[in-house]
């Protein structure tokens, strides 16, 4: 029987032990090294690979110790960072997904912009070393880098070469346009495929990327870059035509809706779906799990909406943000800038790209991977970077800067689901998405102005 006395003793003992263990490494380090807290949102195996990068940095020098900790998926990491900031205890560096960019930029005093950090600490930093589509996404309106890009991806198409062969399609000539795409799905269906095509990240792939590739705004005010008063434009003819096509394809069994966000990922490596639009990061999983021959290709486009050819796609993934706290010392900022300078090195970038399947974020990193023969050994691995850099970025292919974008993505997914259930057509779904999305944007504008 556990008496109260015993319980008190046990608790006391446990606390003392915990304190002892906590104190040991801390005290040894505090004397010589500046300790930096770094919160990230990558689950295994990527999280382990990221922690390896951090460890490599720690081993590379004596002055700084970066402590990386996993705080749950991206949304949870964001919440943890916000809660910590409110309690005056924010981590030095936090990894934030791309859709949280507008929230972080509006956070004002909570964030120290990277360009400012590098200036203040006198660290060498060349913002132009980054791929334009990457740099644009994380830059302020006047072109100043607000966060350090790290793990970026883009959306591409993966296709099952065996299924193409079986359907009488050329396995080395994936469909490049939507009309070709529809033809291919018809042949795949005729050859017995129950799921010729699906899409992961329905909003990222079929709306945000679609807009960028066709140089069509997703929202007004240059996709939100020019001000908080942006309004959604996803009821434009391009989007209506596209969504109606998907609805029709779904009815005919040519397209399968596999769920929200990255839920449909599993459908491709398992062989169930012959084609998928998904994150370039799906590559590593497919390499591991697929038992068939497969290829990667750029996203298809609508010729009538892209008269002068498709533009560059935009990125996804996450960047590193520097957070402020009343307790920060200049030495800590200096340590963060050292960490960032390390991460910006082309060899670190190229290694991360080749190890994980994320795209290289610097041009030099891309070239380094090329020079090392990575793309000859892994055909198709250069598709995302090639797609990101194929044209100079336009106002519509820089990325999105919209408040509460995760919520807007959910709204669009909800309206899509209602449309796929047959409750409404494309026009109704998108009108409703615009109306609800704009309410979200107005709310964000009010809460963040002034």
């Amino acid at each position, binding site marked *: 029987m556990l008496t109260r006395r015993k319980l008190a003793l046990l608790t006391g003992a446990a606390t003392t032990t915990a304190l002892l263990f906590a104190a040991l490494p801390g005290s040894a380090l505090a004397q010589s090294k500046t300790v930096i807290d770094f919160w990230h949102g990558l689950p295994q195996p990527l999280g382990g690979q990221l922690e390896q990068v951090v460890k490599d940095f720690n081993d590379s020098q004596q002055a700084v110790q970066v402590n990386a900790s996993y705080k749950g998926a991206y949304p949870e990491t964001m919440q943890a960072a916000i809660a910590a900031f409110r309690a005056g205890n924010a981590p030095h560096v936090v990894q934030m997904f791309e859709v949280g960019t507008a929230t972080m930029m509006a956070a004002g005093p909570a964030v120290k912009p990277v360009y400012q950090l590098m200036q203040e600490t006198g660290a060498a930093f060349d913002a132009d070393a980054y791929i334009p589509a990457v740099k644009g996404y994380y830059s302020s309106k006047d072109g100043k880098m607000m966060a350090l890009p790290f793990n970026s991806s883009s959306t591409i198409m993966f296709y099952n070469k065996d299924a193409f062969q079986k359907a009488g399609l050329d396995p080395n000539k994936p469909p490049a346009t939507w009309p070709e795409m529809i033809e291919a799905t018809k042949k795949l269906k005729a050859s017995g495929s129950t799921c010729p095509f699906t899409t992961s990240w329905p909003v990222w792939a079929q709306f945000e990327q679609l807009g960028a590739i066709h140089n069509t705004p997703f929202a007004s005010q240059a996709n939100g870059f020019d001000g908080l008063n942006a309004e959604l434009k996803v009821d434009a003819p391009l989007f209506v035509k596209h969504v109606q096509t998907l609805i029709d394809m779904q009815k005919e069994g040519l397209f399968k809706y596999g769920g929200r966000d990255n839920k449909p990922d599993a459908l491709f490596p398992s062989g169930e779906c012959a084609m998928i639009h998904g994150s370039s990061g799906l590559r590593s999983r497919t390499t591991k799990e697929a038992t068939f021959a497969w290829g990667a290709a750029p996203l298809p486009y609508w010729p009538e909406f892209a008269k002068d050819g498709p533009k560059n796609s935009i990125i996804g993934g996450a960047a590193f943000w520097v957070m402020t706290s009343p307790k920060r010392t200049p030495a800590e900022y200096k340590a963060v800038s050292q960490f960032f300078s390390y991460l910006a090195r082309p060899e670190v970038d190229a290694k991360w790209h080749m190890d994980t399947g994320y795209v290289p974020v610097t041009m030099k990193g891309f070239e380094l991977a090329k020079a090392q023969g990575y793309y000859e050994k892994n055909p198709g691995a250069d598709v995302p970077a090639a797609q990101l850099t194929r044209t100079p970025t336009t106002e519509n292919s820089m990325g999105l800067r919209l408040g509460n974008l995760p919520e807007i993505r959910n709204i669009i997914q909800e309206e899509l*689901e209602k449309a796929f*259930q047959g409750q409404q057509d494309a026009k109704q779904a998108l009108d409703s998405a615009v109306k609800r999305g704009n309410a979200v944007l107005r*709310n964000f504008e009010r809460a963040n102005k002034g």
Partner: protein
Amino acid sequence: MTFDSRLLPYLLLAPQVAVTLVFFIWPAAQAVWQSVHLQDAFGIRSEFVWFENFEHVLTDPNYLDTLKVTVVFSVAVTVLSMGTALLLAVLADSKIKGARAYKTLLIWPYALAPAVAAVLWMFIFNPDIGSFGRALRALGYDWDYRLNGGQALWMVIMAASWKQVAYNFIFFLAGLQAIPRSVMEAASIDGAGPVRRFLTITFPLLSPTTFFLLVVDMVYAFFETFGTIHALTQGGPGKATETLIFRVYHDGVVNNDLGGSSAQSVILMVIVIALTAVQFRFIERKVHYA
């Protein structure tokens, strides 16, 4: 018992009061404060907006849909889990072989975390990887809860009820065992059959337990099914399985709309207080405390 010191009773009460203040009153007060403010995610800018957040919530047609879903969900979960548990408890209470093993097995689901239970359900019902889901599709039934709102709602109701059956079962069984054998035997001698005995003796004598479970299950369906819904459907497809508590989480944690989310949680608080008051006022009168 009397105390010499006037201070001592307060001192003895203090820990309990402190816990209530810190864990219940303080957060509730914060929710009320937040609900009349508009704030950015980081809490840097804050503006007093009177009841604007409530206005937004209550005029949102989606909120009323969510309310409907919640009512259907809660009533279904309560009825299903209590009905099943009562049936199983009555069966387990009779003299059968292996009653102990049977009882133990029935209590197991209660030990599972809601999210784990939901993952198990997903492995059964997912149309692509679930054993039963695949079988249904193989039979030609168009099973896909990711796109069919009715199927999705049915599935979360089943998963949430299944989880609560075990809890209800324990209480019903204890309640049944507390019914004096002599009363039952007397009724048997008077010629009452099992159904009659159940309706005129067992059920009325069980009514305190039933009433208690009714309150607990309603609260469970309202508040604690969040994990199940989050893991299974995330409120989708569309908003077909979005309950009030799920929306509070979603608007507050995912969408960073603290004002709107707090307004919703204040509304939810009012609903549950009202519901419990109604239950105590009208239903408890019919309860027979032995």
